[in-house]
């Protein structure tokens, strides 16, 4: 839901944003505030040069106003509450009511004027990551400009010179401000047909970001370096990330920017794609090769494209398996195969609500619904048509349907598999025992002792105990 903080009073005059300097206000476009974390419909440009709009996953595109041929946006840096997924809200810093801020969409050659009002408790700036622009507009506080003090509005103005995928984020106290969620997406559409930029039917974009929020608390720990516990796309974690709903045969583009502190191998099932653009612009067709996973390094952007020609519900996720988990203990001991007989009752005497978990692995976690600390998400969760999906973090689904209408981004529901196309349980005769290798260590350093029977000491998993 997009709301307007206030209405225009007179010609271009508005009474927005409490502490904004009055003289600056006279010329300011009204900031538009987003209160919902749902994926907004693409914003068809009402004026200016036409383009095919993108869809920001669980996000939206900032409206603008044209003023003497200049596209004017107004970003308000402010504390926000962002729903990370149903059941968990984070107190972040963001822009115009959300984190990340609205996607800014312009067309190559547009003159862009961006008003940035600082409603944070400390100064800030915005760096326009990847843009060609005058040095004084690059937004590095202290180097290119004075920081924007709290309560002040600064203006950035430049021409969007090259088409491509960009990001914006603070370059003032950025360790804190990015850990708090200050970031946004920027797409510059080509002005006219470009040999290396295809027209696509669906164009999705999202930012990779990560938070460290103690389960039961609300504000990210800003001093965390690498040990984050919430891996998010546009500040959303599975099962809070919307699905990518496309029509069979669509040419689909996904733009991904990485503002976390580690790389993310983004993997799509069922299709091969090509990387058609990087931070530096569109890749030349002859440099492209097919992939199913592309690594998006820290501070990088990747633009991938594919033809969605296989119907179904296809997983799409970061391939670091801990990044498809929500908050979890990193020091939890592995309990696999540990016999708990006789101990469960003892523990329950001391802690009546204790339940045995982990004896057979961690899938219990995705199956059991147990009370958790306030304001946190299960480590693994989500129910699919066949049961627990056992995922969290950077995971969603690419839904390809033949009957999805062009321009319709609504969720079509679960895929209905044609008969005989789902894996099934073998019901035939018993299978022979496979032959086992006895040759371990035979190459460079052959084993000298007898064969060690490792299996003999391992207790085979048994049925439920104490569940």
């Amino acid at each position, binding site marked *: 839901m997009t709301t307007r903080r206030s209405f225009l009073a007179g010609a271009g005059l508005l009474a927005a944003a409490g502490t904004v300097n009055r003289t600056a206000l006279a010329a300011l476009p009204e900031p538009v505030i987003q209160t919902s974390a749902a994926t907004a419909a693409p914003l068809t440009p009402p004026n200016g040069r036409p383009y095919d709009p993108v869809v920001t996953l669980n996000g939206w595109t900032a409206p603008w106003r044209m003023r003497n041929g200049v596209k004017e946006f107004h970003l308000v840096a402010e504390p926000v509450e962002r729903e990370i997924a149903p059941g968990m809200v984070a107190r972040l810093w963001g822009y115009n009511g959300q984190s990340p801020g609205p996607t800014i969409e312009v067309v190559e050659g547009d003159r862009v004027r961006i008003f940035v009002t600082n409603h944070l408790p400390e100064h800030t700036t915005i760096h326009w990551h990847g843009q060609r622009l005058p040095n004084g507009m690059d937004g590095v506080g202290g180097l290119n400009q004075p920081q924007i003090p709290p309560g002040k509005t600064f203006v950035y103005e430049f021409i969007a010179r090259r088409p491509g995928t960009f990001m914006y984020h603070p370059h003032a106290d950025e360790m804190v401000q990015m850990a708090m969620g200050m970031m946004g997406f920027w797409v510059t559409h080509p002005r006219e047909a470009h040999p290396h930029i295809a027209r696509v039917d669906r164009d999705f974009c999202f930012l990779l970001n990560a938070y460290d929020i103690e*389960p*039961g608390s609300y504000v990210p720990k800003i001093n965390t370096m690498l040990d984050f*516990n919430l891996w998010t796309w546009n500040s959303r974690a599975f099962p809070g990330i919307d699905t990518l709903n496309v029509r069979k045969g669509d040419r689909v583009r996904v733009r991904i920017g990485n503002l976390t502190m580690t790389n993310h191998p983004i993997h799509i099932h069922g299709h091969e794609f090509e990387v058609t653009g990087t931070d530096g612009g569109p890749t030349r067709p002859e440099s492209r090769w097919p992939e199913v996973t592309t690594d998006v390094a820290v501070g990088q952007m990747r633009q991938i494209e594919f033809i969605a020609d296989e119907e179904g519900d296809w997983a799409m996720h970061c391939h670091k398996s801990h990044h498809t988990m929500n*908050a*979890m*203990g*990193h*020091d*939890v*001991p*592995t*309990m*696999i*195969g*540990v*016999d*708990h007989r006789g*101990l469960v009752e*003892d*523990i329950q*005497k*001391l*802690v009546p*609500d*204790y*339940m045995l*978990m*982990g004896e057979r692995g*961690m899938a219990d*976690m995705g199956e059991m619904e*147990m*009370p*958790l*600390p306030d304001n*946190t998400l*299960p*480590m693994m969760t989500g129910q699919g048509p066949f049961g627990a999906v056992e995922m969290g973090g950077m995971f969603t689904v690419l839904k390809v349907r033949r009957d999805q209408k062009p321009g319709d981004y609504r969720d079509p529901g679960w895929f209905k598999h044609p008969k005989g196309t789902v894996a099934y349980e073998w019901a035939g005769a018993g299978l022979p025992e496979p032959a086992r290798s006895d040759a371990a260590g035979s190459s460079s350093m052959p084993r000298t002792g007898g064969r060690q029977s490792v299996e003999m*000491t*391992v*207790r085979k998993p048994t049925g439920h105990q104490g569940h």
Partner: protein
Amino acid sequence: MRASLPISLLAATVLTGCASVAIDENFAEVERFARDEAGSEVRWLRSDAEREAMRAEVDRLLAQPLAIDDAVRIALGYSPAFQSLLAEAAVVSADATGSARIGNPVFTFERLFRSGAEGRELDIGRSLGISLFDLLFLPARLEQAEFRQQQTRLQSSIALLSTVTEVRQAWVDAVAARQVARYREEVATAAGTAAELARRMQATGNFSRLQRAREQALAAEETANLIRARQNATAAREALIQRLGLTPSQAQALRLPDQLPALPEAPMDEATTGAALLENRLDVRIARTDLDRTAKSLGLTRVTSVVNGLHVAGVRNSETGESTQRGFEIELPLPLFDFGDAVRAGSEARYLSAFNRTLELANNASSQVRVAYEGYRSAYDLARHYRNEVVPLRQNITEESVLQYNGMLIGVFELLAAARSQSASVVQAIEAERDFWRAEAALKASLLGQPIVPLTLQSGASPAEAGGGH
């Protein structure tokens, strides 16, 4: 003179009273003190029948968990130690009665024999004499004796108070030690479960020897704590049994309540305890009595220092051939060498000393009550703090840890550590409550006049912190 002597003797006998009357009076006074001030009754078992009846009553009391008031009742009505104290008081009382009696009359018989030229002469002299001094000062001596009886009564009350306080504290210790041992068992179980789990985890290769050893070391320490706690519980129980004077079979029958009484809603306030102070303190009363007595005896000394003996006797002398001589004799020491000044100076010094001791005692008594109240009040605050803050917080931590465990944010070892800390905090809470009830008994004793070593609060060892993290 002759006629008045027997009357005086009779009067003296009546006034000094018979010893058993004084003993009974003193016991009645102790009984009254026990009832009004210590809230219990005293029995003085003077026959086998009484002993048997009381023994049966004690057996009845021991049929259920022994309440603190019943423990006091047994101590005051049954324990040989206190019975012995009562008997000793009776001895002192009898001595005091004896001290007030005037010296027995002295009968002298003289038979003198002379053989001379005039033949044999028999000279028989008889006199019946009494110390006139004793008679003259009989009222003063009776007063002195009454002071001594009063002292005895007060001393008996102090002994009673001391017994009551000790029994109350011993009961509190025994109940608390038992309760602590039970929670130590919980702590040890939590640590033991973790150690067993660690052992199994090492067996399946999930834990290293180091990880297992850490859990086992914790469990071993908790086992040591449990052994200590159990020993304390046994020792505290036996200390109570000794104060109650139970026979071996009664000792075996003794059961204790599972927990200490609940803390009172509000503590006694300092104004009440302060106001009640000097009137009630037995030791102050003893000092005052002593001072009065010293003052009286000072007056007495002024008179008797110069002339310290006056003896009068009726004399009857018979001599052969002579008519009988009748008369009296007075014996009076002459103050030629001893003018009594040393005695007077000594007596005055004793009075001064007693006077200042009384002052000191009064000041100290006031200070002791303040200390006792402070100890009582701190113990109350601490016990309430443990009950209302520490234990609920630890419980809350355990509950939150369960949620964290559910989310696989922490492992079972941290959960067990939280449970261990929770039980350990309960142990601390019990110890704080025990300190409170001890301090309460000490304060009550202090208000009535028995200096008790003031309470010092033990520093609570903080239970092992359950680590968080994920």
